[in-house]
């Protein structure tokens, strides 16, 4: 019995390594090829570069306008995250405290946003009428709109767990609604706010469709759009493409490694309740 169990555990570990390997190969492929010379990167292999070429990154940053698009991505994702977290937490708080018909209906209406698809064509009309098309505030508001439903859904679960007695005690102490929320409730939601912010930042950093539809000028492009364009231009220079992809993914990977707890925690919070 003991040996059988050991054998099963051994097989399990083999399986774990096998899957991890399949997940890692593409990443390793990108990393090693990003350091190869032009001649060496003609075919994409997992072999280590004969000599490590760092100039690829310089070339990519210059030719791919990576710095500009990096700053754009940072601006869009950063601003959208701040607005989403602020408005999202305020809305989630109101919905969770008003559990009457209107409150529940408003919450449902908001969460329906997770389900309904965006009509990009008609959205263009709205963007033109509101003078938001091809503009920085426009793209930030679009990111905000697409992220709000999930954020409200996520934060609603957390804020519901904060006891209402606390609100009543605060009111007796003379708190108004603004001080009650920003002084007491918001700080208590801190860990869930971080989770929501990290998820929102990652999602908006990776966003590709909205800028594809609504940002025409290349100097406003975020990293995803810049890397796509670069890919089309340098189809044969795999070393440059890999360097470009690596630099684009790097912020996400760093963020993932440092905030893994919040990312996985936040994702599972929504799903694991039963």
């Amino acid at each position, binding site marked *: 019995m003991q040996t059988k169990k050991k054998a099963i555990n051994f097989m399990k570990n083999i399986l774990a390594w096998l899957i991890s390997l399949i997940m890692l190969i593409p990443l390793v492929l990108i990393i090693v090829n990003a350091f190869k010379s032009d001649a060496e990167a003609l075919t994409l292999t997992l072999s280590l570069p004969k000599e490590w070429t760092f100039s690829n990154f310089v070339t990519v940053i210059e030719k791919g306008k990576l710095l500009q698009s990096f700053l754009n991505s940072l601006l869009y994702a950063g601003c959208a995250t701040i607005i989403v977290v602020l408005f999202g937490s305020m809305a989630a708080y109101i919905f969770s405290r008003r559990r009457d018909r209107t409150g529940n209906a408003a919450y449902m209406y908001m969460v329906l946003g997770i389900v309904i698809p965006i009509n*990009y064509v008609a959205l263009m009309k709205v963007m033109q009428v509101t003078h938001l098309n091809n503009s920085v505030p426009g793209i930030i508001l679009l990111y905000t709109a697409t992220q709000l439903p999930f954020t409200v859904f996520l934060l609603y679960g957390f804020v519901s767990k904060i006891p209402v007695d606390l609100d009543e005690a605060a009111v007796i102490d003379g708190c108004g609604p603004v001080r009650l929320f920003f002084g007491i409730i918001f700080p208590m939601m801190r860990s869930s706010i971080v989770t929501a912010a990290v998820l929102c930042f990652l999602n908006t950093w990776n966003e590709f469709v909205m800028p594809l539809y609504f940002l025409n000028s290349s100097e406003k492009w975020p990293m995803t759009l810049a890397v796509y364009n670069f890919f089309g231009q340098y189809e044969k220079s795999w070393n440059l493409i890999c360097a470009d992809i690596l630099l684009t993914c790097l912020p996400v990977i760093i963020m993932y490694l440092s905030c893994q707890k919040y990312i996985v925690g936040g994702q599972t919070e929504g799903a694991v309740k039963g």
Partner: protein
Amino acid sequence: MKKSKLYPWYFAAGAIIIYTTLCVIPGIIGIGYAFTDWSAYSKEIHFVGWENFKKLFSADTNYMKYITNTLLFTAVTTVAKSGLGLLFALALSKNIKLKNFHRGVMYMPSVLSILIIGLVFTSILNPKVGILNQTLRTVGLDSMTQQWLTNPKIAFWSVMAVDIWRGTGYIMTMLIVGILAIPQVYYEAAGIDGASGWNKFIHITLPMLKQTLAVTIVLNVLYGMKVFDMVYALTNGGPGHTTEVMYTAVFKQFSQGLYAEGTTISSVMFIIMVVTGFFMIKVLTKDEVQE
């Protein structure tokens, strides 16, 4: 203090206004535009009745093919990701050395940009220089090498395979968290009653994972119906529309200035999702509604 004063609606106004203006209103006016000849080529917009919808469902156009492709993509990827995810979660939830490393690696694809994953796989699946065909040649399986993304017979399956690679780790992680949350006493009690491993799985594990599975399946269906980045990066609908899905078709119409057709297909999606959405929202918010 009264509820209305303590929890003022203006707190929720910001979120509701932005969401309504940019998500809901386009969906609704889009339905109106679906009955017109709106395009980039004429200044005036005329009412044309059901013309666009007739075009959508007629045999002369490919739209039905795009709709069935989208449904096929959704069904195949959802079933494969959930099945593999469950299998791996059961195998890997306990007794794994370096479990945090493995979980970290397996979850990673779901934080990366879908577009970039697509681009990376166009190089992996490249028939000449890509690592997949090279590996097959090295181990002597030359006959298995394929034009993965340009052969009309297999291109769509390649796209789905890449998406399964991307999404399985996410479901697995959710399910592992779910499995670890099941109190150990249940299994011990069942063990005392002499239940077999299979019986424990059917009567304890599976029922306890029902909600997690339901949520992940709903999220996957939603993703599949709206899929764009992955297909756009890998094949852009080609070769010859064999991998075209609804949203790549919408983008093509948009860039060609065929706005009316683009908004018609979007509206069909919108109506389908709002109607079925009610059911999906029920699944997502199940616990909260009961509270």
